[in-house]
Structures are given as C-alpha cells and as structure tokens.
C-alpha cells in the first residue's frame, strides 16, 4: 500500500469511526433517557414519568449530545496542538540536533535517513526517560509529527533494531494513523466524561440532604454505568483498529528497511527484557495505541497490540519461539551492515512517487554521507543553520553576492555573517540534490529557534530571495519547504482539505504545472505530452518564457484541494514529464521536491540520477 492509497483509506476509516461513534452517542442518549425515567419512576411512581412534558426528554438528549461534543472537541483541540504536546505530557525531552551524545546522535541519524528516504519532513525526536523498550509517533499531520523513543530502546537495541523500530513509527506517520488515533482519543474522552459527571454527582449526593437523594444516586450510578460502559466498548473498537495498524506498520518497516531481522529482533528483545515495553507515565494510557509495543498487558480483546509472538511469527514464519534473553546487556553496534543488491534505478514515474521502495534508506544514508561534513554539522546546529540557509541564497553573480552579503552583515545576528562567508564556497561546491538534503536536515534544527529569532531569520531569508528582483527554481523550492515546515510550526499550520476528486475543474492549473516542469528540460513538447497523457489532459503546452513563481503558486494553491489519489496521479504526471527524456535533471528534481512539499505529499528518494546536470 502506498502513501496515497493509505491516506485515502484512512479517510474511509475515519468515516466508519464517525458512524460507529454516532451509533454510540444515539444509544447513550437513549440509555440516559431511560435512566432518568427509571430513577423518576423509582421516586415518584410510573404515572409521574408519563406526565412529564416531551421537552424534558428533548432537553436531556440535547445535553448528553452537548456534553459529549464539548468534551470531545476540547480533547481534540488539545491534541491537535501537535505531537510535541503529547510527547511533553509523557515526560519527553527534545533531543537537540547538535547533541554530542553518541547514542542520541545515532538515533537522529537513523530518523534522518528514514525521513529523507520517505520524502517526509524530518520530525523532532523526544527522549522518554523510561527503561523499557518502546517508541511512539504522535502528531496531527506530517508537519507537526514527533517521534518519541524510550531511553531503554537506545540502551538495549543495536542500530539495525533501532532502524526497524523507527521504520515502524514512520509507517504510522506515512499512513495517517496518528490522525485516526487522535480522533479516537478525543471521541472516547467525550464518552468517558459522561461517566465522570456521574461520579461527580455521586460524590455530591453523599452530602445532599434533599428528599430526592435516592433518585439522584440512582441517576448518578446510571451515568457511571453508561459512561464507563460506553468507554469500554469504545476501547474495544480502538483496540481492534489499533491491532490492524500495528501489523501494517510492522510489514511496512520490513519494506522500508529491506530486512525483517531488525524489527523482529527488537520485538524478541522486548519479549526477553524484564520490563518489556511497559510505560510508567500515567498520561501514556490514553495514547497506548500509538506505541511500538504494548504499554502494559491487556486482556486479548482490549489489547492495543497483537501478541508479540504473533507479530514475530508474521515477520519470521520459521521462528521457533526463542526470545533474546541477554538483552539486558547493552549492545550498541556500529553502522548498519547492509549486504544486499544495489537499488534498481527507477525510471518510471510511479516509482518516483508512490512509496518508500526497497533500498531507498540505503540511498538516503549514502547521500547523507556524501554531503560535506562541515555543511552537515552546520545543518544540525541552530546557530550555524541560519548561516547555511543564507549561504544557499547567495547569488552566483559576484556583484549581487556582495550586496547580499552586506545585507546579511547588516541584519543577521552577530557571528552569523561569518558563517555565511565561511560556508559559501562549500555550498557552491555542492550539487543541488545535496543542498535539498541539507535543507531538509536543517528544518528540525530551525524549529529549535525561539519565535522572535524565527521571525528575524525568515524575514532575512525572504529578503535574500527577492534581492535580485527575481525568484529562481531553487529559491522557490527553498521558500516552499520553509513555508511548509517552519511557518506551520511557528505560526499557523495549514491543512489541505482534499475534496476535489476530478481534474476537470483544474485543467488550467494542471496545464501550467506540467508546462513549468517541461520547460526546465530539453524537448519541452515531448515531455509535456508524456505527462498530459497520464492525466488525459487535452490542453497544449503553454509557452512560458521565465520561471513565473506567482503563477505556479496560484496553480498549486488550487491543486492542493485534490483528493489523495488524484494528487498521486498529478505527481506521477509531473514525474513523467521530468523523466520523459530518460533522465531527471536536477532543476526538475528540485521543482518536483517543491511541488510535493506544497501538495503535502512525500517524494521519496529513488536513486542518484538526480544529479544529472
């Protein structure tokens, strides 16, 4: 299953959940009404119940619905604040991108390789101070996703196993499981709140001296039963959904890492470890289904994760049931030893677009290693990263470059201009695809800035982009990536709605988009035709003299509203245009990168062909 199908299915699943939830609320309303009738009949006799005006029942129904809605909405808004809210509530501490701790450095490297292979933003990583082996992914969309890892995971797993665990969490991010998770938690907390009101009433009635105290107690007890009963059944649904997603995530982890050993061994170590995957933090319970392993032992139907044995068997059918007993001794291996066939070169558009294919992580690791180490370490330091981004924006023309550097000297924080000057030759010696990688690596680092620092940085960057009165392809891509990740983090996350299921209304936009890409390579006519055929687009190639970014932004703004499967078609058409001559030109690859970022789609790495000048 690829990203787009998964997104599409996730929407379908959400609709099913909403249906189940509406059914649950209706039965809760009916039960509460019944309860009031019974407790009233208990106090005043059956005739009094029949004599009540119908407005009473209407009011009771409305208030039950209102309470659930308010409670769910509240929880939803809290969780929607992004993954870092959840990670912090579990006691997590962010791992700084410039950490000197070798364990943490290794973890960040693994996360980075995976993100770049998947074409997803590199998520911030939180360390959870628990000795057990576990991990989670949290967040509402891919832009505010975070990954949390227990200290025990770092201490006990080797690099391959860690990679398996991280790949599992990336599957949750890629398949949109986190959004379903958050909705589930919110809905459940709404139902649970009914029970909590009953509990509060019961305690209140203990002090009450009024004559209808018996009535109140019956009513309160009833609410407790309704609320907790509802939560119980809600949890059954949640657990059933969660177990399916876990199998999928395990399978995807194998697909991403090209090895079933890493993740299977990690699961075996959980089985052999004294505290397994248990989490002590109280707040963990409601997000139990986000974790890699079960946070405590549940009965079979309430379990959020399939039994360890089943998960290992699914990964390794020939497994005999031996768990790793000696997992208490720390085993920190060096770098991953990939010994497999080199990745096949992808020359078809759907391979570029659809999913993290085999070997991409290896490609990502190789590409990351090929980046200049000074630049890579600058991308990991919040202070130096700004100098790096400024350097990427300095024009090749010496006169303009000097004027831009003067601007950096005048407006950047002390010390940063020196970095820009120092990094400039290295940046100029790097290939465009390396610069795109460095840009992605710098994003989680720049999220560590404070808000005023971010403001100053982004306005400086914007001024450098428009300094020469024109915006070139790379500047446009840089701006798109920064908008997607930093603007969403610091200011307002923008969510694409995705309601349009056909290209018919967006023919003009699709035409301009494909034309822009076609004009970046040789034989524009032919390339354009290759993409237009995929979309059944009858429009001819539009003649564009210059790179008109405003026009492109406008077209993409409309195309963002496509449904996931149509976005996939669109991206495949874009990739087909770029690949029509059998090669991916670096400028076209950069464009694809920016387009995918704007459409909120991942663009996984496929091979190193992108460096063709």
């Amino acid at each position, binding site marked *: 299953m690829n990203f787009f199908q998964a997104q599409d299915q996730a929407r379908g699943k959400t609709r099913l959940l909403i249906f189940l939830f509406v059914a649950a609320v209706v039965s809760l309303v009916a039960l509460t009404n019944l309860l009031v009738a019974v407790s009233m009949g208990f106090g005043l006799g059956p005739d009094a119940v029949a004599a009540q005006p119908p407005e009473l029942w209407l009011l009771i129904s409305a*208030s039950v619905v209102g309470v659930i809605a308010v409670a769910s909405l509240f929880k939803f808004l809290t969780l929607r604040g992004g993954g870092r809210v959840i990670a912090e509530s579990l006691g997590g501490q962010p791992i*700084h991108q410039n950490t000197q701790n070798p364990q943490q450095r290794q973890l960040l490297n693994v996360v980075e390789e995976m993100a770049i292979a998947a074409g997803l933003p590199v998520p911030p990583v939180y360390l959870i101070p628990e000795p057990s082996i576990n991990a989670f992914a949290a967040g509402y969309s891919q832009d505010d996703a975070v990954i949390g890892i227990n200290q025990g995971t770092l201490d006990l797993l080797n690099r391959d196993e860690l990679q398996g665990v991280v790949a599992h969490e990336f599957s949750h991010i890629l398949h949109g499981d986190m959004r379903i998770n958050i909705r589930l938690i919110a809905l459940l907390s709404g139902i649970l709140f009914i029970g909590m009101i009953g509990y509060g009433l019961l305690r209140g009635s203990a002090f009450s001296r009024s004559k209808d105290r018996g009535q109140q107690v019956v009513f309160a007890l009833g609410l407790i039963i309704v609320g907790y009963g509802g939560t119980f059944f809600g949890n059954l649904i949640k657990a059933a959904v969660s177990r399916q997603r876990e199998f999928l995530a395990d399978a995807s982890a194998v697909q991403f890492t090209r090895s079933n050993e890493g993740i299977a061994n990690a699961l075996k170590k959980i089985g052999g470890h004294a505290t397994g995957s248990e989490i002590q933090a109280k707040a963990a319970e409601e997000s139990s289904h986000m974790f890699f392993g079960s946070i405590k032992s549940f009965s079979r139907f309430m379990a959020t994760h399939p039994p360890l044995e089943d998960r290992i068997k699914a990964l390794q059918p020939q497994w005999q049931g031996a768990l790793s007993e000696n997992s208490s001794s720390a085993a920190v291996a060096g770098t991953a030893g990939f010994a497999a066939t080199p990745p096949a070169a992808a020359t078809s558009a759907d391979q570029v677009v659809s999913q993290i294919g085999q070997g991409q992580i290896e490609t990502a690791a190789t590409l990351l290693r090929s980046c200049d180490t000074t630049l890579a370490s600058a991308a990991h330091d*919040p*202070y130096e990263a700004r100098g790096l981004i400024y350097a990427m924006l300095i024009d090749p023309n010496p006169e303009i470059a000097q004027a831009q550097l*003067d601007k950096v*000297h*005048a407006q950047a924080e*002390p010390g940063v201009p020196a970095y820009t000057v120092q990094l400039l030759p290295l940046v100029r010696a790097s290939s465009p695809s390396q610069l795109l990688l460095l840009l992605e690596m710098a994003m989680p680092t720049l999220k560590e800035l404070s*808000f005023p620092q971010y403001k100053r940085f982004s306005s400086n960057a914007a001024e450098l982009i428009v300094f020469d009165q024109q915006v070139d392809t790379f500047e446009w891509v840089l701006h798109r990536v920064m908008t997607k990740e930093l603007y969403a983090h610091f200011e307002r996350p923008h969510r694409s709605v995705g309601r349009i299921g056909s290209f018919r209304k967006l023919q003009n936009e699709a035409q301009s988009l494909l034309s822009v890409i076609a004009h970046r390579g040789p034989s524009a006519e032919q390339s354009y035709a290759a993409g237009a055929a995929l979309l059944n687009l009858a429009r001819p190639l539009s003649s564009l003299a210059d790179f008109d970014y405003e026009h492109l932004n406008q077209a993409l703004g409309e195309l963002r509203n496509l449904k996931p499967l149509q976005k996939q078609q669109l991206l495949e058409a874009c990739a087909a245009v770029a690949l029509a001559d059998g090669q991916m030109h670096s400028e076209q690859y950069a464009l694809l990168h920016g387009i995918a970022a704007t459409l909120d789609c991942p663009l996984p790495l496929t091979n190193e062909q992108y460096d063709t000048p």
Partner: protein
Amino acid sequence: MELIILLIVVAVLAFWVVSIYNKLVALKNRHENGFSQIEVQLKRRYDLIPNLVETAKAYMAHERETLEAVIAARNQAMAGLEAAAGNPGDGAAMKELAGAEGILSNAMGRLNVVMEAYPDLKANTNMMQLTEELTTTENKVAFSRQAFNDQVTEYNTYRASFPPILFASMFGHPTDAELLEFEDSAEIQAAPKVSF
C-alpha cells in the same frame, strides 16, 4: 432540568480552566527544555578553556596567577551550571550562574590583555584555533540564551495575564521564571553593526 444546564456550564468552565493549566505546563516545559541548549554550549566552552590554558602555559610561565584565576572561575561557573540545569528559571540558580559567568568573563578578559604581550603565543596555530572556537561558542551561548529568555518571557507574560494569573499560584506556578542575563548582554542586545 436546571441541574443539567448547571452541569454543562460547570463543564465548560472546567474545560477552560484545564486549558489554562495545560498551557502553563506546556510553556514551563518549553523554557525548561530550552535551557539544555544553553547547557550544551556552556559545557563546550568549559571544555575549551582548560585546553586554552594548557597551550598558554607553555608561553607565559610568569603569569601563573592569571591562568589559575581563569581555571578557578571556570570551575565555579561549571558548578553554577550544574545547579542551574537542575532548576532552570529558578531565581537564585540563574543569578548564581550569571554571577559565576561574569567572573569567568572577567578572568578571560584579563588573560586576553596579558596575551597581548606574547606575540609568539598569539601566532600559535593551536591557540588561534582555540580562540576562534571559543568566540563561536560564546556567540552560540548568547544565541541560545536569547532563545531561552524569549521562552521565559512568553511564560511570564502568559502567567501574569488575566485570567491565568487567578489560577497560576494554585497550579504550581507561583513566581515568574528568571531570565538568564550575563554582563555582556548590553553588547548582544545592541543593534548589529552595519558595515558597508
């Protein structure tokens, strides 16, 4: 019937109070986590200083006092950092760290003045690298301190705003968090130099 309306009103109020509580906790977490970035940079600085002193020793045997003062100040600042890291934003801890840092800066300043008299030392490649790295690290300290102070200010502003101020003490946020100000702050906060 009134009971139900009352319950809904109470529920909405409760949610509102809970969200104030959550926001206070989130802002506190954020600035406390922000301190660790300063810690990383200060530690780096404290690691560099002994190397610098070692290199200098070979050239300036007669300046033992100055060198010892640097090491003593560095050790004291390190102790201050450890205390502050356990409790970021605490008034006393922040003041102590700022004081120790001030003494260290003074000692380093004196060392720099003394070094002027040793051109050989200044021309030493190792020394030049160390000085350069120390300057960068100091810039980074200033930068991460600025980020921390921004986060502390955000927390303090929210805490002192209405209505959170009504609940802040009750929820365990009785006092403002302390900014971390070093003696050099005037220089850092001043507008950047313009050079054309």
